[in-house]
């Protein structure tokens, strides 16, 4: 077991924690599968409105690889295929499935948990690809969805919640310990190397994590982004080149993976926590992949203009009140939209301002949490250097220069400065603290896609 203590980073002082009490969300009558979740894939549709599907029936496949299918999480009828016309092409946005309430699934061969290590990796892989559950994995470099043609060098899992208001993985895994271990066992067969599980270095670690077998356990402590898997990869076994492919999966992804092999069917159950000051009932809700946001917030919201975020406030997606929870997200955050302006705000002493820079009074006061809204807090300026980026990225890197190299699309520099080691997630705090209000995540994503398309 290796221990890593990360110094750089910052915990955003946001109020609106959720209470770790797990309850049932509203029953999902509809589920949505959205190609936007699967970065790097161009979808080709396989179903039509009115088709009936089972959990595990393919809905679309990757244009460049027919074997890579994306499947329905529930059984029912395809109720809506929505798309948008861009230029002369139609882009698929979502496939919605109306539940028939029967919860029938395509059957794959069930394997007892104890038998998984004895299975051949080809057998496991075949089930994984056919069931569409390969999409539970994401790849580095590039942060795309895992591809069927790749075999990962290692597989990484973070069991640390450092993101703002993120749910406690120990609660998420409760009652599913067996499936979690089965998921790890399956992963160990899928990779050429090892499965790396990162656990918190401080406080007590639940036995499902500390006692996990068939994997290497690493302890990380420090402020956010210590729990971000890309940061952990950097310290454990960094991505060195374009061909050096590793996979990542979430704790709940591992549980679903374990269920797939043990039960022999696609099992979309997961827990989604509700956080943020605009949400009134902030607890953990049982729901499924692709469930509507309303199933977990159930209308319990403050009377104000709200931003509905699937994910955390740094990296999440604005999905609107009628949106669907993203496949990889285990939380939704509701925060107020910025509606007012502040008189000479930049001149105030700032007793209640959240800032990493100690130019305001509040960072000097005892730690307090703030009700944050979606204000940008200033104009966009040329990217001038401050030490800020380096202070929030615990990686041996030059984040400021990396962002600049992406802006000018200098491939040699991007690669030399370590673009393969990052995605938006690791760089999100740089964007948060940037005094020039540079859209760092957008720049990094565009840089990655540019690089991906070039070769």
């Amino acid at each position, binding site marked *: 077991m290796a221990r890593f203590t990360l110094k750089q980073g910052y915990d955003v002082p946001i109020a609106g924690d959720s209470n770790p009490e797990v309850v049932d969300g509203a029953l999902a009558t509809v589920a949505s599968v959205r190609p936007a979740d699967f970065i790097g894939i161009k979808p080709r549709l396989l179903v039509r409105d009115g088709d009936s599907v089972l959990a595990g029936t393919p809905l679309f496949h990757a244009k460049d690889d027919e074997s890579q299918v994306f499947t329905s999480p529930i059984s029912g009828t395809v109720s809506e295929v929505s798309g948008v016309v861009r230029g002369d092409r139609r882009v698929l946005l979502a496939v919605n499935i109306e539940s028939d309430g029967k919860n029938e699934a395509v059957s794959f061969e069930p394997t007892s948990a104890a038998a998984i290590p004895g299975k051949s990796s080809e057998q496991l892989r075949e089930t994984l690809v056919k069931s569409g559950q390969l999409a539970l994995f994401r790849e580095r470099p590039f942060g795309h969805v895992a591809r069927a043609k790749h075999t990962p060098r290692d597989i990484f899992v973070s069991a640390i919640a450092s993101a703002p208001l993120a749910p406690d993985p120990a609660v998420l895994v409760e009652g599913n310990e067996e499936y979690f271990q089965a998921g790890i066992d399956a992963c160990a067969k899928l990779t050429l190397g090892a499965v790396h599980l990162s656990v918190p270095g401080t406080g007590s670690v639940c036995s499902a994590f500390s006692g996990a077998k068939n994997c290497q356990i690493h302890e990380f402590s420090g402020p956010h982004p210590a729990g971000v898997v890309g940061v952990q990869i950097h310290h454990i076994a960094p991505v060195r080149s374009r061909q050096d492919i590793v996979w990542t999966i979430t704790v709940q992804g591992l549980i679903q993976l374990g269920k797939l092999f043990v039960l022999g069917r696609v099992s979309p159950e997961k827990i989604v926590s509700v956080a943020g000051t605009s949400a009134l009932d902030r607890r953990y809700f049982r729901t499924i992949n692709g469930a509507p946001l309303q199933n977990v917030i159930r209308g319990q919201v403050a009377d104000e203009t709200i931003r509905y975020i699937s994910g955390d406030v740094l*990296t999440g997606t604005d999905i609107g009140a009628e949106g669907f929870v993203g496949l990889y997200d285990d939380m939704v955050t509701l925060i107020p939209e910025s509606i007012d302006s502040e008189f000479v705000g930049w001149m105030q002493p700032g007793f209640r301002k959240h800032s990493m820079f100690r130019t305001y009074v509040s960072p000097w006061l005892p730690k307090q949490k703030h009700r944050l809204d979606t*204000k940008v*807090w200033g104009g966009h300026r040329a990217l001038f250097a401050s030490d800020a980026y380096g202070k929030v990225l615990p990686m041996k890197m030059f984040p400021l220069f990396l962002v600049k190299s992406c802006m000018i699309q200098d491939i040699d520099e991007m690669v030399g400065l370590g673009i393969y080691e990052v995605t938006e997630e690791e760089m999100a705090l740089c964007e948060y603290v940037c005094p020039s209000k540079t859209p760092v995540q957008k720049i990094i994503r565009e840089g990655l896609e540019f690089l991906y398309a070039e070769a």
Partner: protein
Amino acid sequence: MRFIQDAFDKARPLFEKGGKLELLYPLFEAKETFLFVSRERTASGCHVRDSIDSKRYMASVIVALMPCLLFGIYNAGYQYLTGIAPGQPTDIHRCLWEGALRVMPIVICSYAVGGIWELVFSVVRKHEINEGFLVTGLLFPLVLPPTIPLWQVAVGISFGVVIGKEVFGGTGMNIFNPALTARAFLFFAYPAQISGDQVWRVVKDGVDGVSGATPLLVAAAQDGVQVVDRVSGAFGGWSNLFLGLIPGSIGETSTLCCLLGAVYLVATGIGSWRTMLGVLIGAFITCFLLNQACKDNTAINALPFCYHLVSGGFAFGLVFMATDPVSAAQSNTGKWIYGFLIGFLAIVIRTLNPAFPEGMMLAILFMNAFAPLIDYFVISRHMAWRMKRVEA
């Protein structure tokens, strides 16, 4: 404050595209964002942002400059009163009043002329007015002697803003520190008023002058007395040099005030302590070596580091000029090297080059030019390390 916001909302169409005053939109925008933090919502990436912005960032430097400005005003008055009639009462409010009469016109002139240039460029380029100017407009007067004619202030700041910054594309794109560029321009264009050896006191009524030498000039003189005795004798000891009640540029004389500014900048996380420490270490080592090598203890080479620290623009340059986030090196390793070389060069110019009594300004400008190169080397090494890792 609702009614002000309403007034702005009402006037907005005039300045927006198609409005009568469309050309002046940057002015409108600057005024509005000066008064109100904008309502703009996050559109991509992070949904919440740190409440710092470039206005607050730059304003923090101005706060850090306040001790220097206030003391500079006091000192200008003090020097004036003691200069025109030794023995006059020099109580604090008289000093402040007389000092303000001489310093404030320079500050106002710098802000007004520089501000006009800033506006012209923002209108032509159609970008928002940059806050970096708030800092430049105050830094520049503080490195000028209180005797400077106002037309030179105007010419200087014009040069600094236009040639030092705007030709490169504005704040964030410039290679040289605009305030120092402006001062260097005056230094070389009008040496009589700024770099002569007897010009640092207040001129009475524009004609009769009472002047005094600066510590560095005293140190450079040769009269057979030990250099330390000569300097501390002329200025009432090291502690007086540290406090700054001596003739000199408006904001530069008090090392104590610069130190206060440094503490504020480092504590708030705005100024780079790496650069500052780098300069100190560079200057200290250079001084130490020169002192060791120097056999003649009457020469300036024998002047110990503690006197270099408190004389001329060393402390001011160290705290406020070298740490400019735009023109300094941007990598952490680069900041150490950049700072070290500034310290080294400043002392070398002061001691080994008889033409310039003051080395800090030239050292910083010189290193401004080299900062991208330093970063280039730091980054290249990092890239080489990464490439080696790929092959391993």
